[in-house]
């Protein structure tokens, strides 16, 4: 009578009526992922030209997008931790440094930051090299992918700092006090007591940052990085089929973001049970 409907009640109801007791829970969102993948496959099969050709053409761009996203994100996790701890530091200098960093970065559009790192930063290095007579610096050539990763990391690191800061602050003060009263240093208390609890709190927003970073990585196409978006543009400019090209590019991004969202949900769920 007061039966609680389960999230995936259709499947389990069917199994139950068949006399099968199901312990497997199918997340209905997976359906959407599968649907988009099927759509891509159907398009490629039904009309290999241009869809399949196009997909093959941009596949190296997909790899670049993944590389930039993943490596930036790993660096963002580290930079954000330092930024977040800096924003909570009792040392005024460190606090000021972290705050200035966060405020400056958050006040500038990501696209402008990426352009700055690719065009302005190498020029600055060259100037310095020239004026100091250091040949290595004067000959400095910017690597587009490296600069894109730097740009994405610096920008997202600022937002991540604030997420970490909020997460750490959400842990009751008593936890730190208990740890300190037992003789732990501030560092030990952070590492063993506060951060493990804060990580659980920040998991959902951190997951969102990953997906946002993945989408924003398309901006690096402007600074000479041959990512998915740029390869899409290259394909279109030779084949003149904007509808097919940009539909396919959009679908590929969609698959990646949907998959990421499932991954994030999975990690969140696991971290709830496993303590």
């Amino acid at each position, binding site marked *: 009578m007061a039966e609680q409907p389960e999230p995936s009640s259709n499947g389990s109801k069917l199994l139950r009526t068949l006399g099968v007791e199901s312990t497997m829970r199918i997340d209905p969102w997976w359906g959407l992922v599968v649907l988009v993948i099927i759509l891509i496959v159907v398009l490629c099969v039904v009309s290999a030209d241009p869809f399949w050709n196009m997909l093959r053409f941009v596949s190296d761009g997909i790899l670049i997008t993944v590389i930039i996203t993943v490596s930036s994100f790993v660096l963002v996790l580290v930079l954000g931790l330092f930024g977040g701890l800096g924003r909570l530091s009792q040392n005024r200098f460190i606090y000021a440094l972290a705050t200035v960093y966060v405020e400056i970065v958050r006040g500038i559009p990501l696209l402008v930051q990426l352009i700055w790192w690719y065009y302005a930063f190498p020029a600055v290095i060259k100037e310095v090299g020239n004026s100091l007579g250091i040949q290595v610096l004067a000959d400095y050539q910017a690597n587009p992918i490296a600069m894109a990763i730097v740009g994405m990391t610096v920008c997202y690191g600022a937002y991540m700092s604030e997420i970490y800061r909020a997460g750490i602050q959400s842990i*009751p003060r*008593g*936890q730190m*006090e*208990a*740890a*300190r*009263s*037992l*003789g*732990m*240093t501030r560092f*030990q208390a952070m590492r*063993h*007591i506060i951060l*493990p*609890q804060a990580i*659980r709190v920040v998991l959902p927003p951190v997951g969102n940052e990953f997906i946002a970073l993945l989408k924003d990585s398309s901006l690096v196409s402007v600074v000479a990085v041959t990512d998915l978006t740029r390869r899409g543009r290259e394909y279109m400019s030779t084949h003149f089929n904007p509808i097919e090209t940009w539909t396919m590019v959009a679908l590929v991004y969609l698959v990646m973001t949907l998959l990421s969202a499932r991954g994030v949900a999975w990690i969140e769920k696991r971290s709830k049970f496993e*303590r």
Partner: protein
Amino acid sequence: MNSGEPIIQIKDVHKHFGRVHALRGVSLDVRKGEVVVIIGPSGSGKSTLLRCINRLEEYDAGNIVVDGISLDNAKNINIVRQEIGMVFQSFNLFAHLTVLKNLVLTQRVVRKRSNEESERIALELLNKVGIPDKAEAFPIQLSGGQQQRVAIARALAMNPKIMLFDEPTSALDPEMIKEVLDVMLDLAKEGMTMVVVSHEMGFARAAADRMILVDEGQIVEEAVPDKFFASTNERTKLFLSKVLHM
């Protein structure tokens, strides 16, 4: 009956929070093995006094010496804190760790004990506070009384010389107060040095060597329990009449 030398020496300590003058020249000596019970109205500075003893709060003036180490120039406050266990009103168990790990972690990190030794000590102490069967539970799965007993065990695992209790039973349902007080009584009998902020007058009568009334940041009266309960001081009488009718 306690003739030991003072293990805590508090001399004319002042503490301000902005414009609030929370401690106004408090002096107090606690001898080894002594049980001191502190009472006083809310906001009178009891917690602040207790928290100054392990420097969770830093005092502005005066001096505190714990076990021969002056907190003024304690280079490593963590060394002093290892000797002082503190039990809070809100238990403050580490929420992400099981009961056992709550007791083991600090031993390993601070005392550098092996995992086996830490676990053995932890289980002994859980037995002592009467909850040997909850080692694998998480704090949230325990009642308040059980949590507070775990918190006491966690503090004891560090082999402190002094235990500070800040209203350890005031967040508990009435039926759980006794189980915590019993553990504290045992500790007192074993000769632990204890400074206890509590309005449990039954405990004070049974365990206290000395009672102290704090009001507006100052010690108003200080006496052995018999004399304290028979006090002629107006403020003591007024406050006792309130807590005895709770």
